[in-house]
């Protein structure tokens, strides 16, 4: 497939890929009711996709919050507005950094492992074996991973934001001496549950979760059953997910505002 892509026009190739991806989404959605029998598999995938991503998400969230706190404190100090550190950290994290950074990390950590796993399952005939055992591989392999990604992303994003605010608090309040109450009161005064947490955080991360896991599952499922094909598909997952996240982020921001 890669060789053929090279000869095609890049734009036409990408469009065709998006089209195939969309058709694959239809297959996933139509198989979703059937996959309800495989609920335990979804739970298992939720652990692999979400639970095992917690460490990286929490670590990165902490450092993003800390660096935000540090930078904002010094910039805001120029205007004598260091008490706004808390609210700016929270708003930046809820509206943009939380969903986007979590999405990029999620694509790198969970997306690649989904693609590689499904790709290897195809390369080692496990997908064919499932068909032979009268188990629908879309319902058993693709849908649980897709659903797991969809559920895990908002939860991971919340954890990320919580850690970021903790990190921002650590730097701004504990190290740089912003008043604790001011930090929180300013934050609570400026952050709105609906606009920032629900619309900003939850919506965006849900969309990102759906897109990343769709791309990951699709790339894995349609990979050439060779080690080269799996490597290529894994790369495609990261590249396509990253582009999709950043492009969709703009669209969603414009749309939600």
């Amino acid at each position, binding site marked *: 497939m890669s060789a053929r892509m090279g000869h095609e026009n890049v734009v036409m190739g990408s469009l065709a890929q998006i089209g195939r991806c969309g058709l694959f989404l239809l297959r996933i959605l139509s198989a979703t009711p059937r996959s309800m029998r495989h609920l335990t598999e979804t739970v298992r995938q939720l652990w692999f996709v979400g639970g095992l991503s917690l460490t990286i998400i929490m670590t990165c969230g902490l450092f993003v919050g800390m660096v935000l706190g540090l930078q904002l404190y010094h910039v805001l100090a120029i205007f004598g507005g260091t008490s706004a550190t808390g609210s700016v950290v929270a708003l930046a994290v809820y509206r943009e950094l939380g969903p986007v950074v979590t999405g990029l990390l999620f694509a790198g950590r969970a997306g690649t492992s989904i693609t590689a796993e499904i790709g290897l399952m195809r390369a080692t005939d*496990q997908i064919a*074996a499932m*068909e032979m*055992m009268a188990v629908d591989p879309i319902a058993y392999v693709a849908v649980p991973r897709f659903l797991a990604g969809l559920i895990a992303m908002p939860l991971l994003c919340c954890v990320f934001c919580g850690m970021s605010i903790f990190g921002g608090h650590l730097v701004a309040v504990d190290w740089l001496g912003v008043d604790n109450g001011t930090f929180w009161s300013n934050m609570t005064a400026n952050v709105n549950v609906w606009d920032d947490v629900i619309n900003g955080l939850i919506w965006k991360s849900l969309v990102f979760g759906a897109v990343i896991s769709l791309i990951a599952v699709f790339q894995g499922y349609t990979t050439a059953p060779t080690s080269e094909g799996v490597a290529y598909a894994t790369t495609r997952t990261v590249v396509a997910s990253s582009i999709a996240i950043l492009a969709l982020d703009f669209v969603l921001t414009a749309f939600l505002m």
Partner: protein
Amino acid sequence: MIDTVQAQSDDRALVRIRGLTTVLNGKVVFDKLDLDIPRGKVTAIMGPSGTGKTTLLKHITGQMRGDAGQVWVAGKNVAELSRDALFELRERIGYLFQNSALLTDFDVFENVAFPLRQHTKLPEVLIRNIVLTKLQAVGLRGASSLMPSELSGGMARRVALARAIVFDPMLILYDEPFVGLDPIALNQVLKLIRTLNETLGITSVLVAHELEAIKQVADLVYLIANGKVVAQGDPKSIADNGSPWTSQFFGGEADGPVPFQYPADDYAEALGFKQGAA
């Protein structure tokens, strides 16, 4: 013709292939192939590499469909089955993949239990009993907690066999079951195929190259080449039927009806030696 096939399907042949024609990427894989798999026997399908032996198995299971002709399995035309009916049929067919295709996420026990868990709601005790019985049958009950990555090729194939027979199928398809096995493992698999056929009466179809192994186990051998059955008979006598195909295949000759050279344009012309070109 269809009527006659249906009338006969109840008796001798479990699988009946009539006039199967398949073209893949411009290459004719099957050319009006006719083939019967008798009930309760071990049938071997042999042939040079690339003649579509594995493709034939995929036609029997409905993973692939021919361009013309019919494949009848237990009186049903596979190509006309709905998805659900096809899945129902597949539950009664065991398939042993060339590379075993065990699910890498699960240990041996869960791999064998997988079809049971997916298709039944049996209590855990019963599942355990069935799985351990099947594992005992292939001699790997002690390995039930190992992961697939910890198994040797022969063990993995036996686990896959246990998984294939967990539903007591009417038909087992073995895709190259002897490839890459040492003589001990090969004989273990051979013994299993024979035992399963004799004790459970399971119809077996083997795709393989190894004539010595086939001789020990098969009741009937089909030799396929050029998309057709070129020879058939019992394994002891098929090599001596006088056809150039059989003498090349079983004699292991490098050149013959199956050419040494892949079809190409004129050699001399390709090198620029042809007189007309000068």
